[in-house]
């Protein structure tokens, strides 16, 4: 039974909101909704920017809001609002009901009230107090930009830190009732090196989830040295010559290619759209037998980890591809409803103003048996992609990725650095060409932009060899 009395007329974080939430959900069901979900968020973010030897920006931001989603049959209506009063939430429910053209109660749904609160936030209550202060962040960022000042060729030095703290309440008409706190911290370093007509960039980003102390432990000197070396290695690089060739992709952020080119095609949103070539390939071979790929939200401290997804479900470890055979899709509530693939705890959104969608979390290719050297030794004429930049995938599965730091491979050895390389292909053709996986799996944090906004993810892989791919260049 739904509780009958309302204690508060507005959502209050850190307090019991059960009765108010129940009344709002009951209101939606009584108007004919099949399913009602409330996602309520309180955020407290902060960013710091160091340029050269000065802090040039400290920027806190705060937000509160609610995303209300109503399902009727397989359709859904989503309304977001900053108004967290009972009136505001009810009005949003009415608006969603009206959008879905539900004119009378035609559902058979019964709302038995919310279950006992699953409070994932309890052990995390002090996180916000435990994160480094602006003073601590500023000092360390300035140390890192100072470390980058190694050479007069380094003309731009930047260090940036951002901390996103999010408190969420999730309640829905299947009784789901949960609260959680998320904490993401990232730090990035960027340099530009310049010498006469030569110019190069170096950058690196680090990130974690749920470890307030992480920034204090960050080895800024090591990071700055890596970024500096990368920019110096590329400063006088020639442009790569375009063509088809074998490539070795480095571990860590090299996994961005699998994420973009294949991972997105395994999200149920792509099945709904009819934009994945893999929709009817379950239990069929879609990749080389060397490839096993995983998506999970469980690795402690990883940027894409979560205690519950944004639909209140605990994340699972999903083996997407096992020895080249497609085993699973990444699914959320709408995905399960519309495609039949069971939810995997992957319903994610940037914030309350987006409806959740099936999104990746920590996604990586599992380690194989080879060393990095064995992969490189197997190529007589090709490209080693040590560091990848961003990329994109088109509506037909065609992808392209910029290589930030690349080296030619000649007779099994790394030779000169090359710039301007782009990897071009499509997942269906490239996945069977990943013929060797290294034994050095590592993960790297990133941000993924898609239908439900920008979410924190981890990409990863060991070193891998692709037998042949189009390399764009000059």
């Amino acid at each position: 039974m739904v509780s009958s009395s309302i204690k508060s007329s507005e959502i209050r974080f850190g307090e019991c909101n059960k009765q108010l939430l129940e009344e709002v959900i009951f209101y939606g069901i009584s108007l004919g909704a099949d399913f009602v979900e409330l996602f309520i968020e309180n955020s407290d973010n902060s960013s710091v920017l160091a340029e050269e030897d000065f802090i040039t920006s400290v920027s806190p931001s705060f937000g509160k809001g609610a995303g209300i989603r109503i399902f009727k049959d397989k359709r859904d209506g989503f309304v977001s609002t900053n108004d967290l009063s009972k009136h505001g939430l009810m009005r949003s429910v009415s608006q969603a009901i009206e959008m879905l053209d539900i004119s009378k109660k035609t559902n058979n749904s019964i709302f038995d009230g919310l279950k006992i609160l699953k409070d994932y936030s309890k052990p995390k209550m002090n996180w916000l107090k435990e994160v480094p202060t602006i003073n601590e962040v500023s000092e360390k960022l300035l140390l890192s930009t100072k470390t980058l000042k190694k050479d007069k060729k380094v003309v731009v030095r930047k260090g940036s830190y951002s901390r996103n703290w999010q408190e969420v309440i999730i309640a829905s008409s299947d009784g789901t009732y949960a609260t959680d706190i998320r904490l993401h911290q990232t730090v990035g370093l960027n340099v530009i090196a310049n010498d006469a007509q030569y110019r190069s960039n170096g950058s690196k980003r680090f990130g974690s989830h749920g470890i307030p102390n992480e920034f204090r432990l960050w080895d800024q000197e090591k990071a700055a040295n890596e970024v500096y070396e990368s920019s110096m290695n590329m400063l006088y690089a020639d442009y790569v010559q375009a063509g088809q060739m074998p490539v070795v992709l480095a571990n860590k952020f090299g996994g961005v290619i699998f994420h973009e080119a294949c991972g997105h095609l395994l999200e149920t949103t792509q099945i709904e759209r009819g934009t994945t070539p893999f929709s009817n390939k379950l239990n069929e071979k879609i990749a080389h037998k060397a490839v096993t790929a995983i998506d999970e939200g469980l690795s402690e401290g990883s940027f894409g980890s979560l205690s519950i997804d944004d639909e209140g479900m605990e994340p699972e470890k999903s083996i997407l591809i096992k020895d080249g055979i497609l085993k699973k899709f990444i699914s959320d509530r709408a995905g399960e409803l519309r495609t039949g693939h069971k939810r995997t705890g992957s319903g994610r959104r940037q914030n309350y103003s987006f409806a959740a969608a099936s999104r990746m979390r920590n996604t990586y290719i599992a380690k194989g048996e080879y060393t990095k050297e064995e992969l490189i030794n197997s190529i007589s004429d090709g490209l080693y992609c040590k560091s990848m930049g961003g990329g994109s995938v088109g509506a037909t599965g065609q992808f392209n990725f910029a290589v930030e730091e690349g080296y030619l491979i000649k007779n099994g050895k790394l030779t000169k650095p090359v710039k301007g390389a782009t990897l071009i292909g499509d997942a269906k053709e490239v996945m069977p060409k990943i013929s060797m996986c290294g034994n050095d799996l590592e993960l790297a944090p990133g941000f993924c932009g898609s239908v439900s906004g920008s979410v924190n993810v981890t990409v990863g892989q060991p070193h891998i060899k692709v037998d042949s791919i189009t390399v764009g260049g000059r």
Partner: protein
Amino acid sequence: MNAIEITTKITNAANILNIDKWDYGASFSNDYSVQVDRGKAKQLKASQKQVITLRVWNKKNLVGITTTSDLSEIGIKKALEQAYIASEFGNKNEFTDFSPLAKDPIQVKEVDKKNPLGIKKLLNILRKAESQLIDSHEAIKSIPYNGLSESFFERIYANSDGAFRNHSKSQAALYLYARAEEKNKKPRSSGSVKIGYGVEDIDIESCIKEAFQKTVAHLDYSSIKTGKYLVCLSPDAFLTLINAFSSIFNARSVIDGVSLSNKNSIGDLISIPALNIYDDGLNDKNISSAPFDGEGTPTKKLSIINKGVLENFLHSESTAKIFNTKPTGHAGLGSKVSVSPDWLVVERSNECSELNVSLDHENYKGEFVYIEELNAIHAGVKSSQGSFSLPFDGWLYKNGEKCSIEAATVAGDIKYLLKNIINIENKEELTTTGISPHIWINELSITGDE
């Protein structure tokens, strides 16, 4: 909450906190959007958003900034307090002030603010458009990316010195991206976007026709041999490149060292003399125009490249002070005040005698690559280095016949490109980001599958 109420709230809270100097930019919006999937409503969305960005100056004249969507009295007070704390870390090397033009008169375009049509009508319109596009060709199986939206928003700028501006408007957008597939061929996708002040201003038929034509035209494709080609950039493609390399004329980027220009670049010849580019946010055809920027500076027309010569940088208040000039109305309030162009207009100057005017994309019979649309700009442009390597949709023309290019990238250098323009066609075309004619480049590297 309206503009007056929010300004009053901030004034009162600042008085209580003994903060004498502040300004803020606010955005209040109501958005409605629909998506469909083969005749059925897919996602219907409405959002109501209120966000303010507050800056406060402390006694040392250092600035702190905060953004919040909590516009309650408690929320605003917290935002002011946090901005004040942040001001202790304000940039000591670059003092920011109110824009000296924040009280100057603004030009507001006379445009009818449209009334909302509502979700049901939006849905019916989009369903019909989707159906029409699917029926237009048997190879078009679905419109995976589609949407119709209408937005109603108000922007406000006010400061403790008495500047106050607000501007409200409506805007609607329709996008249709079709996916077509024929047996034993790869799927192809293309589409069209149209915007208007309201849905009734959008030429839906032309959006459907354009999406159909573009998608179907790409059905017969073939790979292209890797090499150097004579290239014609569509107006949309050229504007995409110029916007991607706008750091060339962005004073913020120049000061930060991430531009190809330096502080002394004004007056340099950076392109062929036949090229003019200006920024014209208030252009009649710019649906997204705003009469003032994030610092309250009025929007105005500004010449950027005149006869190939870099004539002006875009400025915020602080960059203008460094360059001893006035802000140009291109500032955005953020963790650091950003600078960006509004609406670029590209045209042929009167110093065009060296152009090869026989190059006309509709009539030229020689071999060339026509680049219709550039993709993945965020990944393939290195603006601080000047290089680009971008996938594109386009055609290979030979003897007046055209064939869609299967998959290819174009790579080059923006400095080379601007100095190797060999024709600027006479006819200018309107796009969603500005106005430009077709631009011909002597030689660019194309990577294909062969």
